[in-house]
């Protein structure tokens, strides 16, 4: 046993010593990444920023000013933006220090901890994701948020000037005083992303106009879409990979929200999803996949599933991030002609929708502090409203923000001036489809319960579609689950 204890003690001592050496080790790490900026971040073109960026790596704070601003986030995305801004504007970093707290949303841990800190007035700026943003803009957490105009931002004018996507403004507007309290940087309006070669084979043409006509793009109904599905099925192609691909469209285009006046409400559009899913399943119009599983990714590559000889799906529905962060890498190639790379095009979807997104908020506690107010206004304005070529969104749209590829942004003005051409789309400018997509998106049916209710609903839809139970039993179980888990009665 002595040996065990001895070895544990040795380990502990080594650990303690390593702990003491931590600071120098870190700075040497920073020096080495400084030495080879090109290698550490290949996507980066804004090289001048690198020196300062490297210095702040591994630290918990950005900037070195006397005024401290507490920033809370669930990923490193927003903190990285602050870091970037300070590196571009060293003066800002001399005035303010950002103390960053990051709590992952895994296991739903971010919200309880953030809530606690908000109550104690220890948060000045925070980020919220589409799944729970309404809690902080319109729900029970809305009281903590400061209106953008109270920070000194002329928000109405700025929104108009930058042509910010309306749905992001709707979601970020607090109903009690009709004030904008949160805005995003990324816009997540969704479009239809289809395979050109399959379109040519089935519809006789792969151009956007032909396909939009064939699927009834922008019609607001699925009638034409189902006809296209039938046509595709004749040649053996399922129109989508799984029912989840259509769900986001159904969900967002609903005429009413899940919860109305404190009661569960199943909008007719969502009720119709039961039979849509069953049709897809029974007629073989999908490959029966679930999102984020290998079978789903296989359809992006245009490959059959393990052990089967099924044909790949015709299209996916999603925002620009789905293309750049998910589909590009899963196309099975890196150049036009390899795998499905270059065989994809974007067009308007039959029904408008959006999917995901992050919103940035300032707290009342932060806005009430005269020292912090100006700093908060400056950084939030840069992230959410600055449509100039110095703004965050310009870098974001052009793929010049370190470590990020091209993405659609909240400001239409930025997208009009940015280059959205992608090899993946055979040179098509993705913003041609995403600018109208952001306009079509509607954030009015969003509630803070959506994430929970959606998963309960889709589970029961699956039970019905696969023939496990009748539609009445499925609806009954769905209502019971919502009542038991969320205390929302029907």
């Amino acid at each position: 046993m002595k040996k065990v204890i001895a070895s544990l003690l040795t380990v502990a001592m080594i650990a303690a010593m390593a702990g003491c050496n931590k600071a120098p080790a870190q700075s040497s790490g920073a020096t080495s990444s400084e030495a080879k900026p090109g290698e550490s971040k290949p996507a980066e073109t804004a090289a001048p920023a690198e020196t300062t960026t490297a210095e702040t790596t591994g630290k918990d704070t950005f900037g070195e000013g006397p005024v401290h601003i507490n920033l809370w986030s669930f990923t490193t995305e927003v903190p990285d933006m602050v870091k970037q801004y300070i590196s571009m504007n060293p003066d800002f970093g001399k005035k303010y220090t950002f103390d960053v707290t990051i709590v992952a949303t895994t296991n739903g841990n971010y919200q309880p901890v953030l809530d606690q800190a908000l109550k104690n007035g220890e948060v000045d700026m925070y980020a919220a994701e589409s799944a729970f943003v309404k809690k902080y803009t319109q729900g029970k957490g809305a009281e903590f948020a400061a209106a953008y105009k109270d920070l000194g931002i002329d928000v109405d004018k700025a929104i108009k000037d930058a042509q910010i996507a309306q749905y992001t403004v709707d979601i970020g507007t607090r109903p009690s005083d009709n004030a904008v309290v949160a805005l995003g940087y990324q816009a997540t309006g969704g479009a239809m992303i289809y395979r050109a070669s399959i379109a040519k084979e089935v519809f006789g043409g792969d151009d956007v106009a032909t396909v939009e006509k064939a699927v009834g793009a922008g019609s607001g109904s699925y009638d034409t879409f189902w006809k296209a599905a039938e046509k595709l099925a004749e040649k053996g192609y399922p129109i989508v990979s799984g029912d989840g691909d259509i769900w986001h469209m159904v969900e967002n285009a609903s005429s009413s929200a899940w919860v109305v006046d404190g009661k569960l409400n199943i909008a007719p559009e969502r009720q119709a999803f039961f039979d849509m899913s069953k049709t897809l399943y029974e007629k073989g119009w999908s490959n029966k996949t679930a999102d984020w599983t290998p079978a789903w990714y296989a359809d992006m590559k245009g490959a059959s599933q393990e052990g089967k000889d099924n044909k790949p799906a015709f299209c996916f529905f999603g925002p620009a991030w789905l293309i750049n962060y998910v589909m590009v890498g899963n196309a099975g190639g890196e150049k036009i002609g390899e795998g499905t790379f270059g065989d994809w095009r974007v067009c308007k979807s039959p029904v408008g929708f959006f999917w995901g997104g992050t919103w940035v908020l300032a707290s009342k506690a932060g806005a009430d502090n005269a020292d912090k107010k100006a700093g908060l206004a400056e950084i939030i304005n840069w992230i959410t409203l600055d449509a100039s070529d110095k703004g965050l969104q310009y870098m974001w749209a052009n793929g010049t923000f370190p470590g990020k590829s091209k993405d659609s942004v909240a400001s239409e003005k930025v997208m009009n001036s940015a280059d959205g051409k992608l090899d993946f789309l055979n040179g098509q400018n993705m913003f041609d489809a995403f600018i109208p997509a952001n306009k079509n998106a509607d954030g009015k049916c969003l509630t803070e319960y959506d994430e929970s209710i959606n998963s309960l609903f889709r589970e029961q839809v699956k039970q019905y579609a696969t023939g496990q139970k009748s539609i009445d039993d499925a609806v009954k179980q769905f209502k019971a689950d919502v009542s038991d888990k969320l205390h929302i009665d029907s």
Partner: protein
Amino acid sequence: MAKTQSLHKESIGLKIIIYVVCVILAIASVLPFIIMFSNSMRSTFEIQQSSISFFTKDPIGNLAKNWKVFNGKSFDPATGFINSLIVSTGTTILAVYFSCLTAYALYAYEWKLRDAFFGLIVGIMMIPGTVTAIGFYQAAYKVGMTNKLSMLILPAIASPNMVFFMRQYLQASLSMEIVDSARIDGAGEFMTFNRIVFPLMKPAIATQCIFTFVGSWNNLFVPQILLTKKEKFTLPIEVSLLNSDIYQTEYGSIYLGLSLTVIPLIVIYILLSRYIVEGVALGGVKS
């Protein structure tokens, strides 16, 4: 003669069965580790296409890329590693020592509240951890003890599960005669425990060390709500942060992070498992 021959045959048959079962179980036990390590050398997209495969185009390049992603986040894997090591080592030492001490108190002495105290320990064992964690967090928050590693270590002094185990173990294997003879030799009670009883509990301690260290090292729930500053993150928190960006999940670096997380565990486990495998004989303890 005939009898021994059939016995011989039977044992060969049995041996074949034993080895077949053991080899199958061994493969099932090791496979996930191999998948984990091989996936850390594959690109995110290769993993998405087929998560259980050993195919990769460029293992070294992918490994380097995955490491860059992991290391390129604003947190520092080396710091996370050291924090995890401090927490797990501290937890293990405190839990093992004080559990043995408490178990010894429960086993070796007659005292009035003994049975009540034992009942209490059994009771604490049964309390579900999920919700008490919130009470724990709020208490820590009130006294300003969040972001302190000691808040994860000190509670280990009261490890009811281990006390229960150690008591059961003492009951099965420690003879009071040994304690008595030490007393006759004039050793103090505390000394007797440290010099005689504690070393005698070696096999139990070795196994409990492993369980505690593994549990503490992999613990995510409490650290995640208690530690919110990057310089205090443990390794599992950093890995879970890689996973929380739903738009861009870097599976390659997640597997790399998971592999890095598990390597120290394997090392420590193998180091300590010697004591189990060798099977420290307890001869002389009870007779």
